[in-house]
């Protein structure tokens, strides 16, 4: 049972690997993984945020502790890009 739980957690995080990659350049893979799981993936899956972009926007103040405004804007642009691509794929 414990193993199943771990597998499910891992599978969920694998879906978010692209976001880990985005933040990994600024705070390292491990911290980015933890941050994405705790804040972004949790917010989206618990429906506290409508989309990943919203989740990142909500974190802006906290991210400013170690990131520059332009860096956050770059990440937001990448997230938007991915989300619009996903929407187009769904429509097709």
């Amino acid at each position, binding site marked *: 049972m414990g193993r199943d739980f771990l597998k499910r957690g891992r599978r969920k995080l694998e879906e978010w690997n692209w976001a880990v990659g985005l933040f990994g350049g*600024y*705070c*390292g*893979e*491990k*911290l*980015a993984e*933890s*941050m994405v799981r*705790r804040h972004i993936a949790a917010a989206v899956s618990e429906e506290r945020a409508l989309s990943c972009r919203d989740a990142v926007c909500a974190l802006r103040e*906290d991210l*400013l*502790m*170690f*990131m*520059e405004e332009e860096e956050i804007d770059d990440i937001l642009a990448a997230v938007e890009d991915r989300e619009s691509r996903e929407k187009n794929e769904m429509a097709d």
Partner: protein
Amino acid sequence: MELCLECGVPDVICRGFEWSGGGSIVNRSSGKEYVFLDCRLLTAVYDTLTFLDGPRAGLIMCEVRRRTVKEEAVRSLGFLARHSRIWFVRRRALSGLRDLAVCCGYGNFRIRSYEPSGRAVLEVAHPYFLPFVDAELRAYWEAVEGEQPWVKMEAQGGTAVFQLENPESKEKDRKSRVLHERFRPEERPSSGKFERTTCTSCGAPIEISRFTWNLAAGTVYDPTREAHVCLISVASMEAIIQELKKHYGKEVEDVMARTARKYMRGLVRGNMIMRNLGKQEFLRSLVTRGEVYIVGAKERPRTVEIEIRNPWSAALVAGEIAGWMEEKERVRMAVEWDMEGEAGTIRLKPADAITG
């Protein structure tokens, strides 16, 4: 405890610490290096890491702090306090540690009650950083009483009340560690830019007389930075950084440098004195705080190279320098640091000059 009439530095600091030529402050009783750190910088680093990894990062930092402070406290206690179970000797030892904490800017530790059975209520006013104060109290208690206490903490406004109690357990053996060899510069700068002058009465560097020691509140205020500072052990902070690197990889240093840079920028933005400081003055202030020893600073077109020795943390020092320069020169800077043993170089370039 009293303040030097000439420079205003507490006698505990003058007698207990030595400003070596190598840009370090050494505690005479424990033999460890110390550094003046901004309390808000500590908070910023802690907040960033706990935001990224949650309470685990905070726990790692506090646990390492507790472990290292315990070792230092055991070393600095007298023989009697270490080996005798007489409670008033221990009470005296605890007051000695409390006096040191007041002078180092950790806050005002008031012992409300201390019973021979090993139960105490301590009141900490103006704590410099509450998670570390909690860790330190556990460490001091363990050093004095010989076992880890059961702790209950209540924070009310700017004051925290700690109830400590001894669980029943056997006293553990305590081991002392061998001192490390400390960096000393081969040649002391003669009439150079980083020369220090000392107070004729107490021998403390005259630069630290600008700090305001409030012994009643247990705070040390740096009017140049307009920030409260604390005199904290380098070995302890290094241990924290090493432990964080073990958990999160080398990149954690980058995060800390980024946080220090942002912190420094915010500090300089609202501070005319800091903005008007010259480069040499700013670097000299880092030496006096025990953060680093500056061998020299070379200015090349579009690059500033600062040769350093024995930094308490190369990443945080680099971040602080970069933040200060960014805000002063209004240019985004990219910062790199290379360390080989205790010697290293910090390179600052305008961000657009960076390739790759």
